[in-house]
């Protein structure tokens, strides 16, 4: 395997007495779709915040493209090519969809014209072209999710962190989004995603890391991870693996 694009090395995060992330270590291979899954409260979003520079970890280091980035500010990470989306979508509500995406595009384009052209291109890629002149605050949930993705994509990232882009979408909307995300990876962008929609995780991921109670408890290919006893127990409670026989439930 090639050198990892992202390397999380024994990262811990304490909030008072709570250990939200407990010495978590994992890698993300370049040009892969890697998923970070785990039950609610496992520390996934905290880990994302740390990787993207929004939060300083209590301990541990993060490396991106062979350079240490622990504690580097988010906007500087974005300039280096590490861009995140938010689980609770945060559009620039009174700006149009075009202007929203253009903010991302401005990271690589100084000229307004070039940023607007890029915005239009990315909007088409994500099926947002008919909303280009609408205010972002008026979009449906599903369109807002795609806008969140579009903005990040327009920033031309090397590594894209997607925090639950599928949450709140109906199954057909999820099905529509899967090829879009694959196309992003095939275009050369590495993707690390947090996702609860298992249909999406199983079908998209090249590699999965499972986080439970702040620790990485399993890593592997999708088909290996779902059968893992520890993973089943983390999701369904102790003894569940025996009860369900570690079956390869889909």
């Amino acid at each position: 395997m090639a050198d990892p694009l992202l390397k999380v090395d024994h990262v811990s995060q304490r909030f008072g007495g709570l250990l939200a992330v407990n010495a978590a270590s994992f890698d993300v291979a370049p040009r892969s779709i890697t998923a970070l899954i785990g039950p609610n409260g496992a520390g996934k979003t905290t880990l994302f915040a740390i990787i993207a520079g929004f939060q300083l970890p209590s301990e541990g280091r993060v490396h991106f493209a062979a350079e240490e980035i622990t504690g580097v500010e988010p906007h500087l990470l974005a300039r280096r090519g590490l861009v995140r989306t938010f689980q609770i979508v945060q559009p620039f509500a009174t700006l149009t969809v075009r202007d929203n995406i253009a903010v991302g595009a401005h990271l690589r384009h100084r000229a307004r014209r070039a940023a607007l052209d890029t915005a239009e291109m990315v909007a088409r890629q994500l099926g947002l072209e008919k909303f280009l002149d609408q205010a972002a605050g008026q979009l449906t949930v599903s369109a807002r999710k795609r806008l969140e993705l579009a903005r990040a994509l327009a920033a031309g990232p090397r590594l894209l962190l997607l925090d639950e882009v599928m949450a709140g979408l109906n199954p057909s909307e999820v099905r529509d989004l899967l090829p879009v995300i694959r196309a992003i990876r095939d275009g050369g962008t590495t993707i690390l995603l947090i996702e609860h929609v298992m249909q999406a995780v199983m079908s998209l991921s090249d590699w999965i890391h499972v986080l439970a109670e702040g620790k990485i408890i399993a890593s592997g290919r999708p088909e290996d991870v779902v059968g893992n006893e520890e993973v089943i127990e983390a999701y369904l409670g102790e003894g569940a693996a025996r009860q369900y026989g570690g079956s390869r439930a889909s």
Partner: protein
Amino acid sequence: MKGSLRVVMVVSAALACVPLVGASNVMLNFLIVAMLAALVGQGWNILGGYGGQYSFGHAAFFGSGAYVTAILQMHYGVNAWIGFGCGIAAGAIVGGIIGFLVFRSGLKGSYFALVTLAFAEVLRIVASVAPITGAGVGTLIKLDIRLEAFQFQSRAVYYWIILFLVFVSLLIAERLEQTRFGAWLMALRENEDSARALGVDVFAVKMGATVLSAAVTAAGGCFYAQYFLFIDSSIAFGSRVSVEALLAPIVGGTGTVFGALAGALAVRSLGEVAKIVAGDAPGIDLAIYGVVLIAVVAFAPRGIVGLGATLWARLRGSEVGRLAGSGSHG
């Protein structure tokens, strides 16, 4: 796109013709004061309207400009035009200092508003006791009607000068809507975290906007000193200046090119009408401003410009919401 630039040109040219059609001195005086309010308001609008940082202390910049212009002339014999430039620079520097302190400490929203108010008040108090500002007496600029002294017999000349400054401030706003800096500024107004995630250096952009905003408002202060030839601490740094700075753009429409200009004309006209109706009751104009502000916030949150855009859209039968929500079209 190019449309709003053309409108800036046309509106400015039309306003420039007013003295040529034989406006009276009273009318010119009204327009000069209204344009001054538009300039000061546009300064506020750069930071408050486009950047979402609601300052309650723009008097700090206005007063810095006014005092530096006056003091350099009276105490150091500096040429009035150079003094004018220095006044603008001084406002920008004060903006930079206040901005640095406030944004480094991460103050936002009402905290930002209160701290800017406090800075303006501190400057007012200092100016009311410091010997160099004339303390309680104020500073008088000697009457010296010469071009070199930036003093003119004709009000029309003052009008054209303030109109030129307003024109420049309109161009600045128009540029904000067409450049990366402006896009970043509006992005951080809407959502700072999203902006940071997309590579926006929130601190640097806020600093840039504050310096620009302070410089424009300081130009208003410099002009005030040259036109009225007298300032004291409450004229220069009083909270009335700060209130008028935010009133015009809020009434006219924040974050729009023409909001401050439209708002200043509307508010000033109302003030004049109030004076005619209520006679010389002191403070009647302020009371009227209060009512107008409440009415605008309640019924036309996007101001005169927003109201106009909504009506225009309705007239053309297109979707009202599309224009009303787009926020960035003057």
